[in-house]
C-alpha cells in the first residue's frame, strides 16, 4: 500500500486540467462519422508509416497481476481508465518465468521492493528510463520528421530523440544518458530503434528491474492500424540478465487532445515523508 502511495504521489499532480481541444487531422471515419481506429495507419510523404500522434499505454492482456499489488490501482484519474499497470510495475509480468535476472540483479530488485521502491527515479523528480516511459500511464506524443523522431513524454517532462538520418550508434565514447542514444531504421513497415549509452542505474519498471551501462535496447515499433501501436522491446544486458529477453508494449491513440506540462520540482515536498528503509 505504501508503495502505491509513493508511486501515486510522484505521478499525480495536475492531471485534471486540460488544454483546449483541437480536432486531430486526417482521422479515418466510419460510415456514421466516428473515428475509425481500425482504419489504415497513415504514411509520411516519404512512404514510411507515420507514428505521429498522442499515445496511451494499455497493459498487455498477458500481464499477470502481481500478488503484492493491491486492487484498484488501475484507475489513476488520468482520463481514460487504464485496465492495469502490471507491466509498469513489473516489465517481466508477461513472461512465464519472469525476467532472467543475474543473481545480484534479482537480489537488488528484491531489496527495492522491500524498500517500497522509494528510490525509483520517478519518485525523486528524476528522469525515468525508456521502458518506464513506454509503460507509464501518462501519455506521450510522437513527432516524426525526416531524419529525426522526437517523443515528448508527459511523465516527468521526458524528451527522447531518435535519429533516423542514417548515423550509426556511438561506440564506447558516448556520455551515458538517462535516455541513452537512439538511432532508428526502417524494416518494411517496422521502425527498428537501437539504443545504447545508458547510465548504469536505470530502473526498467517501478519495482526496479535494473539496466546497466552494458545494456542495449532494440525496439520494433509497428503501427498496426490507425488506433493501435505495438512496440516489441528486446533488452540485451549481459551484466544484469543471463540472456536477452523480449516483451511487447501496446499503445492506443488519443484523439483531439494534448499533453500538459509536468514540472515535478514545483512544490516537491514528498521526499522527507517517504517510507522504506
Amino acid at each position, binding site marked *: 500500500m505504501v508503495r502505491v502511495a509513493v508511486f501515486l504521489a510522484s505521478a499525480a499532480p*495536475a492531471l485534471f*486540467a*486540460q*488544454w*483546449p481541444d*483541437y480536432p486531430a*487531422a486526417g482521422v479515418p471515419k466510419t460510415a456514421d462519422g466516428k473515428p475509425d481506429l481500425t482504419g489504415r495507419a497513415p504514411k509520411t*510523404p516519404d512512404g514510411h508509416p507515420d507514428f*505521429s500522434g498522442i499515445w496511451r499505454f494499455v497493459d498487455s492482456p498477458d500481464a499477470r497481476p502481481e500478488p503484492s499489488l493491491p486492487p484498484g490501482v488501475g484507475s489513476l484519474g488520468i482520463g481514460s481508465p487504464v485496465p492495469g499497470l502490471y507491466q509498469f510495475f513489473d516489465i517481466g509480468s508477461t513472461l512465464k518465468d519472469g525476467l532472467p535476472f543475474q543473481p545480484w540483479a534479482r537480489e537488488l530488485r528484491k531489496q527495492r521492493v522491500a524498500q517500497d521502491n522509494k528510490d525509483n527515479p520517478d519518485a*525523486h*523528480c*528524476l*528522469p525515468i528510463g525508456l521502458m518506464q516511459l513506454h509503460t507509464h500511464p501518462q501519455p506521450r506524443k510522437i*513527432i*516524426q*520528421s*525526416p*531524419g*529525426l523522431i*522526437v517523443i*515528448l513524454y508527459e511523465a516527468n*517532462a521526458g*524528451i527522447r*530523440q531518435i535519429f533516423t*538520418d*542514417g*548515423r550509426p550508434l*556511438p561506440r564506447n*565514447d*558516448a*556520455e551515458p*544518458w*538517462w*535516455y541513452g*542514444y537512439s538511432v532508428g531504421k526502417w524494416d518494411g513497415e517496422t521502425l527498428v530503434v537501437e539504443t545504447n549509452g545508458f547510465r548504469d542505474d536505470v530502473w526498467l519498471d517501478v519495482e526496479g528491474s535494473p539496466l546497466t551501462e552494458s545494456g542495449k535496447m532494440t525496439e520494433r515499433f509497428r503501427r498496426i492500424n490507425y488506433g493501435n501501436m505495438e512496440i516489441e522491446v528486446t533488452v540485451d544486458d549481459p551484466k544484469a540478465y543471463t540472456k536477452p529477453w523480449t516483451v511487447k508494449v501496446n499503445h492506443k491513440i488519443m484523439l483531439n487532445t494534448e499533453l*500538459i*506540462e509536468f*514540472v*515535478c*520540482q*514545483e*512544490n*516537491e515536498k514528498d521526499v522527507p515523508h517517504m517510507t522504506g528503509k
Partner: protein
Amino acid sequence: MRYQRLVVLLTLLSAGVGAQWLNYRDPGTPRTRDGKVNLSAPAPRAADGKPDLSGVWMHELTPVSEMRRLYGARVDAAIKVDVPGMEIGTQHKYGFDILVDFTPEESPIRPETEDILERALKRDPAEVCVGVPGFPLADLLSEPIKILQAPRMTVIFYEVDNLHRQIYTDGRVLPKEFDLPAYMGYSVGRWEGDVFVVETAGFNDKTPLDALGHPHSDGLRVTERFRRRDFGHLDYEMTFDDPKMYTKPFTIKVPHDLLADSDIFESFCSENEKDRAHLKK
C-alpha cells in the same frame, strides 16, 4: 545596487555543463573546400518550400567587456565564482535585465511592477530547483536550444532544464481563454514570407522574464519573429506585450548562431541537488 544580487541568482540558474556530446558530422551540412561548415550558404528549405529552421542554435554571446559596461563591478565579483560552462560572457545581456536598453525615464515598467521586482529581489535564494527558468530566460543563459521543424508542428527544445515548447503550425488560432496557464505558454506559428511568426499566450505568472526578476502576468502575449538569414545565422526578435505590468510593448533582438554537428544535452536540476541545504537567506 539592484545588480548586486546577480551573482547569487546566476549561480542558481543552471546546473553544471561541460561534458561534450558526440560530434556527429551531418552529411546534409554544406561545407567549404577545406571541410569547414559553410555558415554563409543559403538557408535550407523544408519539403513545403518554407525555410527550415531546424538545428541547434546558440544566442550571440555578450562579451565580458560589454557585461561590465552594463552591469558594473558586480560582473567582476561574478567572474570570481564562475562555474565552468556558465562563465560570464556565455550568457546574453538580456538574460540579466530584459529592460537594460531603457533609461529609467523611458522604462515601460509600471510602478506597481517595480514593487513586485523589489520583492523578487528579496526572494529566498534557497529556492533552487523549485520551478523552471521559463520563457524567455531559458534561451538567454549559457545553454543552446534546438529547433525541430516538423509538418504541422515546430518544437523548440531548451537545454536548460530539458524544457520544450510546442508551436502549432496546423492553422489553429490562439485560444481566447486558458484553463491551464503554463510555464511555457501556448504557441501558434505562421509564415510571413520567409519569416516565421509565433504568437504565444496562456502563460502562468510564476517565472520572471530575466535573472533580475522582472515579472510578467498571465496576460503576457509574446510575438516572436524568426528569420534564418543563411545556413549559420538566425535573426530572432521577441516582442513582449503585458499591459498589466508594462506601459507599452517592448522588443529585444537576440540573433542566434548555428552550432553545427552538435546537439543539446540532458539537464536535470534535481539530479544531485545539494545546494539548497547550504544556502542562506
